[in-house]
């Protein structure tokens, strides 16, 4: 019962098309788990299913042994699961500081209050700055988030994701579109923030995946064909044929 | 039996008018996401242009020329105004057309005055074609029916059989697809908007003379158009047709029902004896609330089945 996330017989269809087929997956507490697979394998759909964005066609998902497959996204988030998106998803008109602060509000019990003010709250302020420090964006706290560079925006999104204090993080292609040095910075950031958290990451960059992950699952056409340590995955024949092999061509 | 047939036929006549009015907006809204608040204004412009043209060269030329002019106007509105607003999102587009609605209404008053103009049914179609249970049907009404059915058939076959139509169809269900096909999206949008407006204009040409051509007609017709496209389903021509006829029949039937809640209560053997506010509620007959029914339908539809009768995606 050490699983942070558990998926049992999960299926998802859009009309006739079955995108996820009877999928089973276990993600252990505090591990870094990567999901890889060719384009169109259903990785993003899988993320959307876990985070409540899409509803399951059949199956069951549990988060820390609680069933979450019938909950709304915000309810799942409150249970301790946070995620980032493939396309940068921040509040572009707000300042960097405010982006992070919004991410913290719920976890600090502010709820939908209309009687408390956010500006004067010392604890909130401190927490916000501590997260800004963690993601190295303290220097540009008061610039509108939309004006940041792409890499900084991705970092900010990770910041929002961890701000709510979730213990399970899901990152959707966190290094896509970054230069080598930016990728390196991002990987370090991810390593640092996932030290005491469970991490699920979808990534295309194999270097990043093998550097980061404790375990890897390979998703091909809606089915997991293997789940194992990086080393064993590298040696797995089926995986090489289905996925890694194609990379060599 | 006679009554039912008769009610259905009246409902069909009215429904086809609604279909002509709203089919254009279904195309525009489905493909571009633009909820054109001024759609009924183009309908009104159609009626006024037809009035002006038929005064000089007759009704049949007006039937072709007026929609063409409207198509041009619509295309220009899209090209020089809507395209500009597009980047601010659909709500901004809606806001713009809301302003446009005011502008067109005032322009019409500026050019044609504020009193109704004398736009009449052409004489050669102003005779009774046949009668049914004592009520005569004018040849012109049948002409309108034929044109509207022809319009549906032509539109439907263009959309399902031709290449251009297939692209538009694709765009209706998956708006993001068009750009990936490598087509000139702004041009497609301009044409669709122009075409949609022209359809509204054609409806104006055909209906202006029986409804009365006056500056406030856009305001009174505007909201019903939204009802049709929402109930029918986003971007579905078939849906618009079914929804129009449905609303037409519902309204026509409701008007012929003089029953109130009170009648019903009495029917099952109770009698209610209340004075005051609620009395009027239970005495209200279905025929009196008939005009509210479409809006009730709209609200219920958006709440319970936002994709409409035949739509593939939510509004």
């Amino acid at each position: 019962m050490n699983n942070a996330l558990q998926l049992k017989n999960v299926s998802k269809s859009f009309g006739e098309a079955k995108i996820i087929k009877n999928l089973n997956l276990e993600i252990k507490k505090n591990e870094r788990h990567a999901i890889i697979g060719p384009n169109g394998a259903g990785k993003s759909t899988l993320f959307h299913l876990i985070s409540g964005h899409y509803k399951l066609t059949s199956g069951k998902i549990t988060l820390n042994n609680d069933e979450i497959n019938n909950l709304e996204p915000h309810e799942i988030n409150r249970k301790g699961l946070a995620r980032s998106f493939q396309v940068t998803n921040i509040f572009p008109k707000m300042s960097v500081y405010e982006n992070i602060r919004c991410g913290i509000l719920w976890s600090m019990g502010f709820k939908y209050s209309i009687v408390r003010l956010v500006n004067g709250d010392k604890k909130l302020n401190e927490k916000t700055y501590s997260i800004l420090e963690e993601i190295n964006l303290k220097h540009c706290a008061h610039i509108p988030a939309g004006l940041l560079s792409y890499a900084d925006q991705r970092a900010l999104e990770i910041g929002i994701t961890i701000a709510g204090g979730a213990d399970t993080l899901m990152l959707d292609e966190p290094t896509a579109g970054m230069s080598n040095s930016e990728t390196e910075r991002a990987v370090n950031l991810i390593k640092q923030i996932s030290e005491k958290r469970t991490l699920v990451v979808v990534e295309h960059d194999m270097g990043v995946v093998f550097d980061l992950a404790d375990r890897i699952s390979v998703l091909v056409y809606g089915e997991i064909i293997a789940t194992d340590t990086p080393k064993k995955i590298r040696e797995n024949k089926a995986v090489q044929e289905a996925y890694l092999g194609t990379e060599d061509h | 039996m006679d009554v039912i047939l008769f009610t259905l036929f009246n409902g069909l006549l009215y429904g086809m008018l609604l279909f002509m009015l709203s089919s254009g907006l279904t195309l525009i809204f489905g493909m571009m996401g633009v909820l054109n608040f001024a759609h009924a204004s183009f309908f009104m412009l159609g009626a006024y242009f037809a009035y002006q043209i038929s005064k000089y060269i007759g009704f049949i030329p007006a039937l072709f020329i007026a929609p063409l002019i409207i198509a041009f106007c619509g295309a220009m509105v899209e090209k020089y105004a809507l395209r500009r607003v597009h980047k601010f999102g659909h709500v901004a587009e809606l806001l713009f057309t809301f302003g446009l609605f005011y502008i067109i209404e005032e322009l019409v008053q500026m050019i044609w005055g504020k009193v109704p103009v004398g736009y009449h049914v052409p004489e050669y179609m102003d005779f009774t074609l046949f009668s049914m249970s004592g009520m005569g049907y004018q040849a012109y009404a049948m002409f309108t029916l034929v044109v509207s059915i022809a319009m549906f058939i032509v539109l439907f076959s263009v959309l399902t059989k031709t290449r251009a139509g297939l692209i538009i169809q694709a765009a209706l269900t998956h708006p993001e697809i068009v750009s990936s096909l490598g087509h000139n999206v702004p041009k497609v949008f301009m044409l669709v908007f122009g075409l949609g407006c022209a359809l509204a204009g054609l409806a104006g040409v055909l209906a202006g003379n029986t409804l009365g051509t006056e500056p406030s007609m856009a305001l009174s017709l505007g909201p019903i158009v939204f009802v049709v496209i929402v109930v029918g389903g986003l971007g579905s021509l078939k849906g618009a047709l079914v929804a129009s006829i449905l609303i037409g029949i519902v309204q026509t039937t409701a008007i012929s029902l003089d029953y109130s809640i009170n009648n019903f209560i009495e029917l099952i053997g109770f009698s209610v004896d209340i004075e005051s506010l609620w009395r009027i509620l239970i005495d209200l007959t279905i025929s009196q609330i008939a005009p509210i029914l479409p809006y009730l339908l709209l609200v219920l539809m958006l709440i319970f089945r936002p994709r409409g009768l035949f739509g593939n995606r939510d509004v």
Partner: protein
Amino acid sequence: MINFFKSFSTWIIIAVIAAILPLIFDSSFSLTLLSKMGVLIIFTVAYNMLLGQGGMLSFGHAIYFGLAGYASIHILNGIGEETLPYFPTVLFPFIGAIVGLFFGSLVGYVSTRRAGTAFAMISLGFCEMVTAMTLIFVIFFNGEDGIQTDRMVGPEPFGITFGPQIEIYYLILFWCLVAVALMYIITKTPFGRMSNAVRDNPERAAFIGYSVRRVRWQAFALSSMFAGAAGSLHALNYEHIGFESVSVVQSGAVLFMAFIGGAGHFLGPIVGAIGLTYLDSTLADVTEAWLLYLGLTFSGIVMFAPGGLAGLIVMHGPIARTDKKLLISLIKPYCLAISSVITGLIGLIGIIEMLYFRSLISKGEGEVVIFWTEFNANGIMSWLIFIALILVGIFLSKKTFPLAKESWDHAISVVKTEISNE
């Protein structure tokens, strides 16, 4: 304490000016107008909680404004006929607020699942339904006649009867300040911040633990509550409420005010409410084409300045903060551009006025007064003059606008480099 006064200095100045105004303009009309402005400021700022803060475009917000008005009038009449116990007139906005909150929560619950155009359509559907009902349920709404009342009921504490318009003005002023201050504070609360977050990115807002629908619903209900308070004051101001007050026309008017003033900024709707109320009451007597000008202005703002008037001003904030000289350097190109636009506008207005005259009035020799000057609408000369003005305006604009844009671009690039150097 000093800080407190500093941050509220603008507010205090406005309050003092507003309190002095009726001493200068003591005619009953000016007082009615000022009172109307106060009421509409509350209504518009409340509306902007939806449009500007929450990103929801409603065509039916007058429902809550109007229904609260109807409720207040009925209660006032009830007190007058002594069928209802006395309720202090001063506290009437509470009645409106409760009515607004009730209906807002009800309608909001079913309509806030989606934002954008779907929301706009639902709001329009509700508005059409309620307007139709006001005409059908005569017993409560009294049809198109509406209901009249006498606000002088009950005891008269400190000799205040609320009969004279000036007493109503101060009542409205008081509640206007309270309501606007409350709504301003709400923007600084967790709910207010999340309201903006949901507007900008509902998907992300859901994944930081907030129910998007709940935030929208709450915004809708609160906005309706303040709109209701405004409706009560409106009823007190005119001692009358009619079906226009719940109709699409009233909803459209508040949309115009909020958007033209500037939905993106808290002060925008206030500017819009004051400006449009004033113009609506004075320009409408001068020209028949007032609605056309309003429609043109609105569409122009949507196209060229989606931030509204306040947006245009706020846009220059960073420049002013960086270097005042930069701002001053903008004045000259701006003046040139604006004056060329005005030249064209004068021509356009002249043409519109003459067209209106010809189609609507068309009597006598065709003398029509435009800009305090008499023109002949049937003579070719006046048409030529105005057409020439339009052409000159367009010509000048083509010259001056690139200049203005250049100066703006220059100024903003200076600001950008300043920021990145920091």
